[in-house]
């Protein structure tokens, strides 16, 4: 009897801890304790931020060593590709300057919403997603620098995601490739077609939904944020380029995959747009 009582103690502990975990999980799921949980997360991240920064600076070469060893071949190819791309971009930049001046003049006249003149917070990506099941990055700026939940984040001329968590010194960005991410997009001009670009996971192209079979769409078409009323993102931010577009017989919509405008695996510096949806 004494042995069975003693052997039951671990089970009581297990039951207690499972109940505690399930309670916290349920409260979070129903949104009841969101303030406490967010506060605890922000506090923990801010407390550990200096330690992570210091150790990160020392230990990042270790991580980079393993990362480089695992991906040496692809790094070589990527380096060569980037050098060629750099040459092409230099040539394009010169031609783009004149077009930019004309564009600015037109937008002033038409009063279209756009990034020019929008306040931004420059930030650096200091960590990729700590979870294997979400596609996020952590920035080195938080509420203290003006970053807040819901703000869009761009890099290298394209959308990368939006802020979903913000503590005093750190913020977390949900990337557009995350399976829970949906971005309203437009293509075919200012009065063009509307659709939704959904994430399919890290290193995967986006899936574009709700494109009517009668719409004209082809590979290479650029899609930008639609910026509709209550949209999460301002209008005209490049989201991606159509990689493939197929229309099966009697399908209700096109099968479209979208390659993001930004190489989400390689970005280092980003801009957080100090913008909130109008509602």
């Amino acid at each position: 009897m004494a042995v069975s009582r003693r052997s039951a103690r671990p089970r009581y502990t297990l039951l207690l801890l499972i109940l505690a975990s399930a309670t916290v999980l349920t409260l979070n799921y129903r949104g009841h304790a969101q303030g406490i949980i967010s506060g605890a997360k922000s506090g923990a991240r801010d407390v550990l931020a200096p330690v992570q920064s210091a150790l990160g600076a020392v230990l990042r070469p270790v991580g980079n060593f393993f990362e480089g060893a695992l991906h040496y071949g692809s790094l070589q190819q990527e380096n060569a590709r980037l050098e060629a791309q750099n040459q092409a971009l230099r040539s394009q930049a010169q031609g783009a300057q004149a077009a930019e001046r004309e564009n600015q003049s037109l937008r002033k006249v038409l009063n279209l919403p756009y990034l020019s003149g929008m306040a931004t917070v420059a930030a650096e990506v200091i960590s990729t997603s700590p979870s294997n099941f979400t596609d996020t990055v952590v920035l080195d700026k938080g509420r203290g620098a003006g970053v807040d939940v819901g703000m869009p984040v761009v890099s290298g001329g394209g959308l990368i995601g939006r802020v979903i968590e913000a503590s005093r010194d750190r913020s977390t960005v949900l990337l557009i490739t995350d399976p829970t991410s949906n971005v309203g997009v437009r293509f075919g001009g200012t009065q063009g077609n509307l659709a939704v670009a959904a994430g399919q996971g890290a290193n995967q192209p986006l899936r574009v939904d709700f494109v009517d079979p009668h719409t004209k769409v082809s590979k290479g078409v650029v899609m930008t944020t639609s910026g509709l009323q209550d949209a999460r993102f301002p209008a005209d931010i490049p989201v991606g380029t159509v990689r493939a577009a197929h229309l099966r017989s009697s399908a209700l919509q096109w099968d479209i995959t979208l390659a993001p405008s930004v190489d989400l695996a390689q970005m280092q510096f980003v801009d957080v747009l100090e913008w909130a949806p109008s509602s």
Partner: protein
Amino acid sequence: MFGSRLRLFLVIVALLVVQTTILVGVRVHGAHPDAMLLLGISAGMVGGSKRGAAVGFAAGIAADLFLDTPFGLSALTYTIVGFAVGSVQSSLIRPSWWLTPLTAGLASAVGVVLYAVVGATVGQSQMLHDNLAFITIVVSVANMVLAIPVTRLVAWAMPEGPPAYAGAGTALR
């Protein structure tokens, strides 16, 4: 006992920093190791089922503070895995050195799948996507590699070992 708890706290914090600083950058097609899951497993191997559950719970809560998945999901999963490992380990008559990485690998695989299944039941259905098998393999292999050093670290934090009454294995010995 206070010394042991302080050491355990330090081990949890240290592994949390390593996980969020180094291990998140060691990726194979987007999947990276999970040292916090390994912590619960190691505690089960070293300290028995009760301590495995308790350390798994603490490691899970610590991990959840830095994750964007539902809060409490890691705590629930790691608690169950830590307890299960402790229960199985305590029934072994003569444990061998190779059982440590093997147990860590198998338990990690179970842990990752359990995490995704429980996550799907609380609205995170995207966790059961095509990449789950690959994530399971990467985490299992990485935890097999890290099992021996992490288990030694946990053994340092819990030098007293499992309680005398832990599991049916006591009777078999």
